């Protein structure tokens, strides 16, 4: 049954956001607003940075707003936060990434103006532009969302998000893989990783891959092979999953942008699950002084240590 999911609140949110953006740009509260706008292709949206209140009407929010705009405040876009206080449109998942970045001294909360977006979900990446949002076409990450209404924002349109019962796709897939034998899992991941062409799109789109020089680009020593052979791909993805453990917000952008359809977020969700089980930790809910891998407890599990 392909139940449709309501997207009427998105219009209300768009109106509210436009008004707010015009206001805060007009009175100088912020120097720029990072948000979504329409593209040349129908049924898709793209990121946008506006600095003038008159441009506020370009902003919109809909089920096609898949981008995590947090990347527009770091990495290649570092000059944007330097101009002053920046407003940014954030869904719950994007906000988790921002919270993580604040905890890692990449952004300061007082230099951000958070425009929260109550969200019923976004489309998954493999849909044709113009697709309607249904339980089949919704992004897998939205099926397990617990932050439909972002918390702690400076402005939140008073709309109530609603979702029908959704099957938890990632949890089911993780359970399916965990039930396999090690050899079966190895074969599954070899099949997936051998598709990788080392385009590094996953790294480029990830808000937490903000290292100035990535470990895999170093050659003294070369820790991770750069060739797109299975050995090199395996090492790359394992290292990235490990570096994201305890930080990944689950925005699933990596999976969306992967041109070879590798289930990257599956790895990250598995790590998040383990961190929850081992250390009762969930990334992105509050600004942490130290993440789970930068802190410790006398009673940490050591059943695997002789």
């Amino acid at each position, binding site marked *: 049954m392909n139940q449709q999911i309501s997207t009427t609140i998105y219009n209300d949110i768009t109106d509210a956001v436009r008004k707010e953006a015009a206001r805060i740009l007009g009175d100088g509260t912020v120097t720029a607003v990072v948000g979504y706008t329409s593209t040349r292709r129908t049924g898709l949206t793209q990121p946008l940075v506006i600095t003038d209140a008159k441009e506020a009407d370009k902003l919109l929010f809909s089920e096609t707003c898949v981008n995590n705009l947090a990347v527009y405040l770091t990495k290649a876009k570092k000059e944007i936060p330097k101009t002053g206080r920046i407003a940014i449109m954030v869904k719950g998942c994007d906000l988790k990434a921002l919270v993580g970045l604040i905890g890692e001294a990449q952004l300061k909360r007082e230099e951000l103006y958070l425009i929260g977006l109550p969200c019923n979900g976004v489309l998954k990446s493999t849909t044709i532009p113009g697709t309607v949002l249904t339980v089949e076409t919704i992004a897998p990450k939205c099926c397990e969302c617990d932050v439909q209404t972002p918390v702690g924002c400076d402005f939140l349109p008073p709309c109530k998000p609603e979702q029908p019962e959704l099957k938890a796709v990632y949890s089911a897939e993780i359970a399916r893989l965990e039930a396999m034998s090690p050899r079966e899992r190895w074969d599954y991941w070899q099949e997936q990783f051998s598709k990788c062409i080392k385009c590094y799109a996953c790294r480029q789109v990830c808000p937490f891959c903000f*290292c*100035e020089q*990535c470990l895999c680009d170093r050659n003294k020593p070369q820790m991770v092979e750069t060739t797109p052979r299975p050995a090199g791909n395996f090492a790359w993805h394992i290292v990235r999953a490990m570096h994201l453990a305890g930080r990944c917000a689950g925005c699933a952008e990596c999976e969306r942008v992967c041109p070879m359809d590798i289930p990257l977020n599956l790895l990250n969700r598995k790590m998040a699950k383990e961190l929850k089980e081992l250390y009762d930790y969930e990334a992105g809910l509050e600004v942490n002084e130290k993440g789970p891998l930068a802190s410790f407890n006398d009673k940490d599990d050591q059943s695997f240590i002789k």
Partner: protein
Amino acid sequence: MSRIGVFVCHCGENISRTVDVEQVAAKAALIPGVAYATDYKYMCSDPGQGLLKKAITEQKLSHIVVAACSPRMHELTFRKAVASAGLNPFLCEMANIREHCSWVHEDRTEATTKAIEIVTMMVERVKKNRTLDTITVPVTKRALVIGGGIAGIQAALDIADAGHQVVLVEREPSIGGHMAQLSETFPTLDCSQCIMTPKMVDVANHPNITMHTYSEIEQVDGYIGNFQVTVRKKARSVDEDKCTGCGICIEKCPIRKIPNSFDCNLGMRPAIYVPFPQAVPNTPVIDRENCTMFKTGKCGLCQKVCGPGAVDYQQQDQLVVEDVGAIVVATGFDLYNISEKPKGSPIKGYGEFGHGKIPDVIDGMTFERLASASGPTGGKILRPSDGKEPKQVVFIQCVGSRAREKGISYCSKICCMYTAKHTMLYKHKVHDGQAYVFFMDARVPGKSYDEFWRRAIEEEEAVYIRGMVSRLYQKGDKVVVMGSDIAVGVQAEIEADLVVLATAVQPRSGADRLAQKLGISYDNYQFYSEAHAKLRPVECATAGIYLAGACQGPKDIPDSVSQASAAAAKVMTLFAKDRLEREPIVAKINEAGCVGCFYCKKVCAYGAVEEKEIRDRQGNLIKIIAHINPGICAGCGTCQATCPSKSVELNGYTDEQIVAMIEAL
């Protein structure tokens, strides 16, 4: 291109019996980059080292691998030899083919193959070694002592007598700590004030000691040899320089009924007061919370009667920054407070002992104040409830201590002795009184301690009952103590006039906050942690900070004084040099790669990571990145393993060196 020299040691027969050393040398010579390989019977001997030095010069060697015993044995030896031949010592590595090879394997083929692989591994590693030079940091030869109890006083005097400047910071208005509250001290029963006051006066008069009393530590910055400590001198409302200590203000103060914490709230004091008559400095303090002038703006009597005009109601707290090179922490202890259930503390109260509700149930320090000639009762043992002399006093040992279920599992060390002392003091003052002691063990190991304890029983007629007390309750004007006498096997019930509890020794309140400011570790009871329980008992893991006295663990006076002198000795060792030398195995940030996530700072147990601004030529801020202080870094490398971009490198254990070893196998 490297010209590596490989020297394979026979170690007499220790290695050569199982490992074919000539073959190892021969194979080593074939490794690309090895310019010279040889074997020798005893590399660590004088001729062996001579061979090494000669080869460096003649063969123009750039790196050295000595395949011999464990580096924990002779790495220093060979590095010194290499340095004397003009080569940087950190370009010399050892391959362990004795403890890890020849001594643990019997098969000659297997052992030789393994030895060759180990040597190959170390050759590949040493190719990535870089020259490292010893780090030196300057040392400010001034010491800070936190806490003016007997331990702090002793440490301050020792360091000052050695000719160094000392700053002594004490939280209370006077130095002296708990020892000033005691009446007589074990095992000699000499008067505590009499032995202590000369030392207190010495501190006050010592040209090298600056005292900041009624002061607390606000902030600590810096590192060993170079601390900047901000001290908050709280407002006494009296100018220390003008006050002559005449005491008229104290006499005239109209508010006279404030419980005096020095007298365990049995005695009263005025709003302007000195905590005890022999206070050092003898400058009064105004308790602003209870002073009419500060509460209502009316009175001002003390200011009117003060001749030198020392009373100053406008006085504010003052912040003073002291530059010091070493810090001695001597903050002491407090007794477990039976009158209140600590909020949020894992330590539970003793409801069955009256929880402070029964007035004639007191703790050991309160008994000291009763016994003290300058105490609230003038040295008479009197019941707090009605002021009558108690004829039956019950002492209960181990209240709180050794009780895992209450949250304190350690022994408080001093109570067996002071309870025995209390029974003697009581007997000396109340000749017809009877002291009973409920105890579990007699822990009296010190010099003359056991004899002292036996004296309490044999000469002073204290009755010691081995057993625990289950309950106390008020019955009329008596306190009924219900306990067991396990030697005889009966329940013992005593109707006591006064009950004294030997409560557990705990660190002072706020110990954790001070530790966090200093960057030192503490255990789950908040006692400060020493660097090594047996071999480094007076140092902290944090370099430059030392421990003295009961803040490190329950301690009596002789041990506190010993530890204070030991800490002072450590400080003097530090001050004996103008510059402090450190091994260069420290981490270093790659400033181009660092993006300022500060994960390194989060995991550094030593607080060696600081913030550094990177600016362009116009002065604009580009980024704020991490910077590792080579004076503090201990060289564990946790930062490097945690850094996602590997922008921090541990000199001596870089990723290049380690990967070279892995790839060599």
